[in-house]
């Protein structure tokens, strides 16, 4: 990218920041509250029951330590879903924000770049807030665990960019709840966040490993516990592939939609 392209892409992010200035308090509150509730209820509440039972630990660690990193990864998946559906269709269709932007020197590439840049920032904020809560709950035991944050951001991109590409093909919002119900919620519940994927029936395990979430969760967990072997980084391949495919697809669908 040339300097001009970087500046113009930044202008689109600037627009997001201008709007965020008005909403950041509520958004931050949720970013902290949600992990606090989940880690308290599931990690400590359910975790105490598990600690009393016959197995006592999950994959060799307390349930809280098992749950927290996976939940962090899953949170970026959900943030991606929320941020790349309604807000994007609003700018395409309902408020025509992009039409306004494209009447200026900004290009479709700048607009898309700004959206992706903002997605990264937004996911980083979510992940950092979650990470801070994990530290308070004592769910982090090594400095390397900080790497969970970029892993979670990548996971957010792996879900966010294909979502963005899909939204650009939609004129109505009727398919968004379907995606939530049949993709996001099942992945959240069954994708390795709450119990090991190995407990699923084999066909479901195969499906799970084709999604970015299972890999992000596995890697985040190993990083949090502090036993990640170097080859664990291979887990990055699937989310990376989804993110790249999503960016390419969004490039096509945004251009098709906005330059008719």
């Amino acid at each position, binding site marked *: 990218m040339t300097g001009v392209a970087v500046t*113009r892409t930044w202008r689109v992010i600037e627009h997001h920041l201008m709007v965020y200035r008005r909403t950041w308090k509520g958004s931050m509150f949720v970013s902290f509250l949600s992990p606090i509730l989940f880690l308290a209820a599931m990690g400590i509440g359910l975790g105490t029951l598990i600690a009393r039972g016959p197995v006592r630990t999950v994959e060799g660690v307390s349930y809280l330590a098992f749950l927290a990193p996976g939940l962090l990864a899953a949170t970026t998946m959900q943030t991606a879903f929320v941020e790349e559906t309604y807000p994007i269709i609003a700018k395409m269709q309902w408020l025509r924000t992009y039409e306004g932007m494209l009447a*200026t020197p900004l*290009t479709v590439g700048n607009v898309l770049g700004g959206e992706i840049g903002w997605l990264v920032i937004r996911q980083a904020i979510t992940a950092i807030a979650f990470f801070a809560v994990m530290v308070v709950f004592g769910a982090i035991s090594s400095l390397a665990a900080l790497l969970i944050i970029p892993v979670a951001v990548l996971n957010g991109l792996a879900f966010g960019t294909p979502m963005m590409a899909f939204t650009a093909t939609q004129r109505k919002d009727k398919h968004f709840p379907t995606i939530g119900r049949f993709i996001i919620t099942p992945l959240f519940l069954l994708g390795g966040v709450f119990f090991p994927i190995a407990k699923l029936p084999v066909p479901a395990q195969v499906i799970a490993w084709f999604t970015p979430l299972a890999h992000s969760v596995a890697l985040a967990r190993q990083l949090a516990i502090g036993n990640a072997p170097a080859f664990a980084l291979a887990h990055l391949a699937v989310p990376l592939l989804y993110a790249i495919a999503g960016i390419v697809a969004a490039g096509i669908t945004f251009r098709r939609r906005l330059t008719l």
Partner: protein
Amino acid sequence: MAVTPSHPTALVHARGLTKRFKALVAVDGIDFDVERGQAFGFLGPNGAGKTSTMRMIGCVSSPTAGTLRVLGMDPIVDGPRIRARLGVVPQLDTLDMELHVDENLITYARYFDIPRDVARRRAQELLEFVQLQERAHDDVEPLSGGMKRRLTIARALVNEPEILLLDEPTTGLDPQARHLVWDRLYRLKQQGVTIVLTTHYMDEAEQLCDRLVVMDKARIVASGSPRSLIDQYATREVLELRFPIDATPALDGKLDGIAQRVEILPDRVLLYAEDGDAAAAAVHQRGLQPESILVRRSSLEDVFLHLTGRSLIE
């Protein structure tokens, strides 16, 4: 920046300009030139191809065929550079409901790389220009349609454009709001801004435009100044007659020779004549008894209806 226009002075130059969407031909090989300082109007019914033409001039949509030069540059190659010098008022407002009135202008100015302090100052001046200074820190949502339109116009001026493109600037506004918009556009024209607009309001075209093209079914069917179009396609005066509903069909032939052209409509009869009063006298002499008689100057509306057919329903 050195500009070498392909046509000596035209700011917008189109030859054989065509836009197709799959099977639909939205713009079918049109030619026109917009000169600096002109107020240029595209007039035509809905679906005539006005908006598609505007989107091509605005370098948002690429021509399917033909030549288009804006500010001497090719929109396909130099889109961002051209857009930097255009102001665009789209058919539907694209204001940012999540930002305040003044923030809408400041954020938009940033897209043109205008420094923040300059943007702030310009936002204030522009809000005064469109008489919205008192609403500077308000939300956009509760503004009236006319206020939103004025804000959109202010936003389009934030980069001090050389050409202002307006797609149906006053559609849906009440008469006061329309007149305020016209007044502002007239002032801009006086300041030397080139204005290109689309409209299906004849009074708007007559008030604002130096030059008009009438579009119908993707083509240009006539062009000229409002006055020359009236001279060419209408007469000096029009005599409007109303007859009882069932009497109109029985008129066949009885009005021949009174006027240069007679147009029989479902609700009235129009006689295009140089002297309306003389034509009215002739109608009486033939023993016809219309319910009402009106002699008026012909207007662009007569030209428009003549050229684009009577099927127009807005």
